[in-house]
């Protein structure tokens, strides 16, 4: 029998071998063909995506941890043009659910798909989660009845997509809006904070923004950098005190028909601003109403941004300087004849009257311009202005808020200074300050002579750690004894005149101010700035309050319109700050 050259096994082996060789050849061909090279080019082109990693904007809290500015989740809604089947259905859905304009959406959704050019179009942004839920539900319903959108007669939302992102939100709406500022979140690429701490600490809050190439190939080892959130801020503001202060201010402005108003509450011991209210204010969630609220150049925060002649509240600085220099004492006698000539100009009292023999306490109590002008002349211009410099008048306080203004102080030698300025400046005319400058200066008197830097940032949280800010002493313009003496004088003068600034159970010190406003170069007696600066409790000051009402109509006098506002503010403060009445406090501390 003749043996076969190739057995069945050989044929099978040959077949398998050829098959394997073909597979191998195909593998080589796939890897090296022109199509493979094209694929490789595509992979290089589309293998990575550029991803913008935007830090979450930092939060803003009040001193107790109440959120004043945060971020909420909203959605961007758009269409992937390649998958759009029914633009009309998309426009109808968006118009009915989000309120978007039907024709605009229809026009955008009908844009023809062009590879590499027209791929995705945004239809709506900042859409709420509830609206997205409704869209999602509708899309699913349509998909059930018209799978893949194959039936052109039935509606489908294929191609409609949405992606979440964060939007700045202010839970307290307009509360402390003058302090916080706002973030125009609608400009997602270039938005930055405006005014207040949003602008001042924009770099801290914003964190970092970086663009990274992210590989879409899961084999590529890559740690996607996480962008740490921006730093969060803890303000010195007390939400409850701020709310009470704003309410008191709004009522005072309305009741007295004032053009505007400002109240600042500070802890004079450390310069922490507990409340800063100013009119007008706006809902920060609707920042686009800014130009409607702040018309014709109205200052965003008048507490720091508007200078004015403070009037008689400035006398506390003049008297503090004179006492510290030793020119006068509380019981120094002055005979008020109703006029004094300074630099060739006659200066009169607010009532054009002569008050006769007065002590310095009486001069402060009756707010005598003539007396304070005499005090200033006794000091002499050099020392008087040296003290004003010490009290930082004419310089910014550098409070950590954007928009602080300053009016330069004219001193001897300046072309704008005249000898009469020594007299008028002593009672707060011919000199302009912001409310925060007055608060800083007065803090020296309330705080044993140490003038504290006013600030609104209590702490910031960065990289998971809280950094507390430290109080800063910016100067010691007067001695502790002088501060105590003047505080006692002011408390006595309020008590002697039974001022409407007094608060039952609490001894406070303070001074009213009524400053005529210059209109067309002439002072008008009908238009005034009514102010009050005060602090308490006298033996242990824990709050300092500054009130300013601009052009009140009910009365032009600070003692009538501003002093009661101070009293009302203090009544709220002692409750909110848990300050016991003086008698009880002294019995508790064993005094």
């Amino acid at each position, binding site marked *: 029998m003749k043996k076969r050259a190739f057995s069945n096994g050989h044929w099978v082996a040959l077949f398998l071998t050829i098959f394997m060789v073909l597979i191998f050849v195909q593998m080589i061909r796939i890897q090296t063909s022109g199509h493979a090279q094209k694929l490789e080019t595509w992979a290089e082109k589309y293998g990575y995506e550029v991803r913008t990693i935007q830090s979450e904007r930092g939060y803003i809290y009040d001193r107790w941890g*109440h959120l004043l500015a*945060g971020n909420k989740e909203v959605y961007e809604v758009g269409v992937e043009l390649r998958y759009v089947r029914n633009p009309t259905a998309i426009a109808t859905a968006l118009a009915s659910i989000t309120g978007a304009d039907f024709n605009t959406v229809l026009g955008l959704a009908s844009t023809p798909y062009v590879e590499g050019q027209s791929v995705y179009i945004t239809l709506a942004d900042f859409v709420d989660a509830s609206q997205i839920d409704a869209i999602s539900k509708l899309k699913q319903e349509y998909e059930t009845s018209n799978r893949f959108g194959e039936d052109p007669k039935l509606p489908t939302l294929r191609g409609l997509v949405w992606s979440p992102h964060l939007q700045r939100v202010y839970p307290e709406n307009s509360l402390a809006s003058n302090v916080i500022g706002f973030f125009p979140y609608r400009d997602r690429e270039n938005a930055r904070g405006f005014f207040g701490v949003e602008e001042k600490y924009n770099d801290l809050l914003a964190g970092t923004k970086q663009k990274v190439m992210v590989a879409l190939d899961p084999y590529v*080892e890559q740690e*996607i950098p996480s962008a740490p959130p921006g730093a969060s801020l803890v303000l010195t503001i007390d939400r409850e005190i701020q709310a009470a202060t704003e309410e008191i201010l709004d009522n005072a402005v309305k009741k007295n028909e004032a053009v505007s108003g400002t109240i600042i509450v500070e802890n004079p011991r450390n310069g922490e601003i507990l409340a800063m209210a100013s009119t007008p204010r706006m809902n920060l969630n609707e920042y686009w109403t800014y130009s409607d609220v702040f018309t014709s150049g109205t200052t965003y925060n008048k507490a720091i941004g508007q200078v004015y002649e403070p009037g008689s509240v400035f006398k506390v600085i003049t008297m503090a300087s004179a006492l510290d220099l030793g020119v006068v004492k509380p019981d120094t006698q002055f005979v008020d004849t109703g006029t004094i000539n300074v630099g060739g100009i006659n200066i009169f009292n607010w009532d054009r009257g002569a008050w006769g023999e007065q002590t310095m306490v009486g001069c402060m109590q009756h707010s005598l311009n003539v007396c304070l002008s005499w005090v200033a002349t006794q000091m002499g211009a050099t020392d008087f202005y040296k003290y004003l410099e010490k009290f930082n008048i004419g310089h910014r306080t550098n409070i950590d808020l954007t928009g602080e203004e300053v009016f330069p102080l004219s001193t001897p030698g300046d072309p704008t200074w005249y000898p009469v300025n020594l007299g008028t400046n002593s009672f707060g005319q011919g000199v302009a300050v912001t409310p925060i400058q007055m608060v800083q200066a007065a803090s020296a008197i309330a705080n044993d002579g140490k003038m504290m830097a006013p600030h609104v940032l209590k702490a910031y949280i960065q990289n*998971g*750690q809280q*950094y507390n800010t430290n109080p800063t002493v910016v100067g010691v313009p007067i001695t502790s004894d002088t501060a105590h003496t003047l505080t006692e004088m002011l408390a006595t003068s309020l008590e002697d005149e039974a001022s409407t600034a007094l608060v039952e159970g609490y001894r406070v010190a303070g001074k009213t101010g009524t400053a005529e406003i210059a209109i067309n170069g002439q002072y008008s007696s009908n238009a005034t700035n009514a102010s009050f600066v005060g602090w308490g409790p006298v033996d242990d000051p824990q709050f300092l309050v500054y009130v300013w009402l601009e052009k009140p109509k009910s009365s032009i006098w600070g003692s009538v319109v501003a002093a009661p506002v101070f009293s009302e503010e203090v009544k709220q403060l002692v*409750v909110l700050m*848990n300050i016991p009445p003086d008698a009880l406090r002294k019995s*508790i501390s064993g005094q």
Partner: protein
Amino acid sequence: MTTRNENRASRKPTKMKLMSPQAFRQAPWRVQIQYVGVFMLALVSILVIAGIYLSISGQAAAAGLASYANDQKRQDLERQIADRKARLALMTSANVMEARAKELGFERIDPANAVYIEMPGYTGKFAAVLAPPPGISTTVEPVIKSTYRQSLWDWLFRGINQLSASVGGSNP
């Protein structure tokens, strides 16, 4: 002088000794099986290595996708946390809380009528401490283990090096 036969006899074992140590040739089917065996051994070895590669590549791809998904999930969670904080703040804002208090029948009192009562041991509110002070590290840096960074060859050479080091001792 030797005879012809003697010469043959003396040569034959020498030739056999040179040609093959065995007395008989391997049967053809045995040779084929040996060839097939060697081929199969090589094939299996290649398949095993390819299998290991495939397995590791699969795991790496799965890990990469999981990492990507986790990153997305982390971002989603961060957004949700921010959103919940904002919602909570909206629900507890000063105006809303006051409105709720009024709904519950509470009234705002005149501060003048407030009575201060001393509560022994109560020291008042403390300012917000929302994070630990500097010096206490709380963040954990994400680290990709070296196991996920090395190739099969890296792993093999590293193992060999470790083995040789353990046998031969390490250099001073």
